């Protein structure tokens, strides 16, 4: 075990943790004030629920030795039995197994919190809690297993995902889309103004997400080494370029320097670089960040004009940026992996397989799950409750 690595990954874990409160502010600021506490509560409850389930079962399904076929982990780590303070060489030689486990936990939390997007402003809080509990187990854990788990089949075929582009972003994007389709738009959607209630909160969230992402991507090196440095710098560069490009796009379209655009662009850059962070040279991170803003902007514009009320845009940013990132990782990878620029075009192909499988599984499984809950427990609050706002009706509180 290495003290330096332990020190690094503990702090990276803390940084990934702070992304979820950050997201609470990012998302909360984008909604109408009457639903802001509800959104923040969804993010915070994700921390609580995912952590407890991780302890009991979800970590085991994702990271316990494969039960066959590379599809799911077994029950070896149920209740964190066998997750000791010593190392588990399948995951790291220098970190206590428990540290690897808690670092991974933070990824699961933020993923689940991002999925709050399509639930915003219209959903029964209890039903949301039930949904995420099951979703963690039947969607997140398997996909995490495929890519990162011991024996997972996407990892086995050589699918590159440095820090979770597939597991976290593509997954959550398409899950969010599925949910949005099942539960339908908010009342008054596209008819009434639904302006963000606090840009400063959005920016606070952006700042916290950004710093957290240093831990997310940097920490994914699982050691305090130069790959961590590369990942961290690439992360920053892609976010910066993303912010700049999106802002300029909006400026040329509307004549205004949209601050929200800057924040969205930063996010688009952060998402796209996630699978690539430790594999590509900085110049490609720069390019990926800029490209991601462009592509996500187009998808977002299209989404916003559609009937799909997934208004915090997990699909347009995490989903889209995630796919783009996965593919471009296959193209630009050159450090510790070989992508198309080193002549290995097959990698792109492998990446596409990873994308396709994740998209399909995430979308279909989430759709079915959401559909069942929607038809049984029911997601939507009553029209009156939606009107009054969920802060009062679900939580008895006001922002």
């Amino acid at each position, binding site marked *: 075990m290495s003290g330096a690595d332990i020190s690094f990954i503990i702090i990276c874990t803390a940084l990934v943790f702070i992304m979820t409160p950050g997201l609470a502010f990012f998302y909360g600021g984008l909604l109408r004030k009457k639903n802001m506490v509800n959104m923040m509560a969804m993010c915070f409850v994700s921390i609580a629920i995912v952590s407890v389930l991780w302890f009991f079962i979800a970590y085991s399904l994702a990271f316990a030795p494969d039960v066959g076929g590379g599809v799911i982990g077994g029950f070896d780590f149920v209740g964190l039995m066998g997750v000791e303070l010593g190392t588990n060489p399948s995951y790291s030689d220098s970190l206590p197994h428990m540290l690897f486990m808690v670092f991974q936990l933070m990824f699961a939390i933020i993923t689940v919190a991002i999925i709050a997007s399509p639930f915003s402003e219209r959903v029964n809080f209890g039903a949301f809690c039930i949904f995420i509990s099951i979703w963690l187990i039947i969607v997140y854990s398997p996909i995490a297993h495929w890519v990162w788990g011991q024996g997972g089949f996407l990892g086995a075929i050589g699918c590159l995902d440095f820090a979770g582009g597939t597991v976290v972003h593509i997954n959550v994007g398409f899950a969010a889309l599925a949910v949005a389709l099942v539960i339908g738009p908010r009342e*008054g959607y596209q008819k009434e103004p639904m302006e963000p209630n606090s840009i400063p909160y959005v920016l606070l969230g952006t700042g916290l997400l950004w710093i957290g992402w240093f831990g997310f991507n940097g920490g994914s090196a699982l050691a305090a080494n130069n790959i961590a440095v590369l990942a961290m710098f690439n992360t920053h560069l892609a976010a910066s370029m993303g912010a700049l490009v999106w802002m300029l796009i909006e400026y040329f379209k509307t004549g205004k320097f949209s601050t929200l655009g800057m924040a969205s662009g930063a996010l688009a850059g952060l998402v796209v670089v996630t699978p690539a962070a430790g594999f590509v040279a900085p110049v490609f991170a720069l390019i990926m960040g800029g490209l991601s803003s462009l592509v996500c902007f187009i998808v977002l514009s299209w989404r916003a004009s559609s009937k799909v009320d997934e208004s915090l845009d997990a699909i347009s940013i995490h989903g889209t940026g995630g796919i783009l990132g996965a593919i471009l990782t296959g193209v630009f990878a050159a450090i510790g992996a070989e992508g198309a620029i080193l002549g290995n075009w097959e990698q792109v192909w492998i990446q596409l397989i990873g994308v396709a499988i994740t998209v399909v599984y995430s979308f279909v499984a989430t759709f079915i799950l959401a559909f069942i809950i929607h038809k049984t427990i029911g997601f939507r609050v009553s029209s009156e409750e939606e*009107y*009054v706002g969920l802060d009062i009706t679900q939580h008895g509180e006001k922002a």
Partner: protein
Amino acid sequence: MKKIECFIRPEKMEAVKNALSELNIKGMSVYEVKGRGNQGGMWLTGRSGRYCVEWIDKIKIEIVVSSKVNVDQVIGTIIEKAQTGKEGDGKIFITPVEESIRIRTKERGEDIL
């Protein structure tokens, strides 16, 4: 001169404003208020039975119009845009105004409106 005070749903404000603009009624002031109507709030059903949200956010638009303006038309326009047919659509009150002054020019009277 009359003051037209209308309490409406916040999400209808833009629509009302735009419709009034077309009648060439442009001067107006907007207040954020909270209110309750004759039902004493909004009744909802929660896990633990019926409960009442006592205050609902509303917007008050206040418009002082000259006596040359057709108040009924204004009221009609507001109703058309602000109505949903559900409880909580709001009310309009008309009160008298004795004098108006434009600060910029010190002009007085109906014509400044």
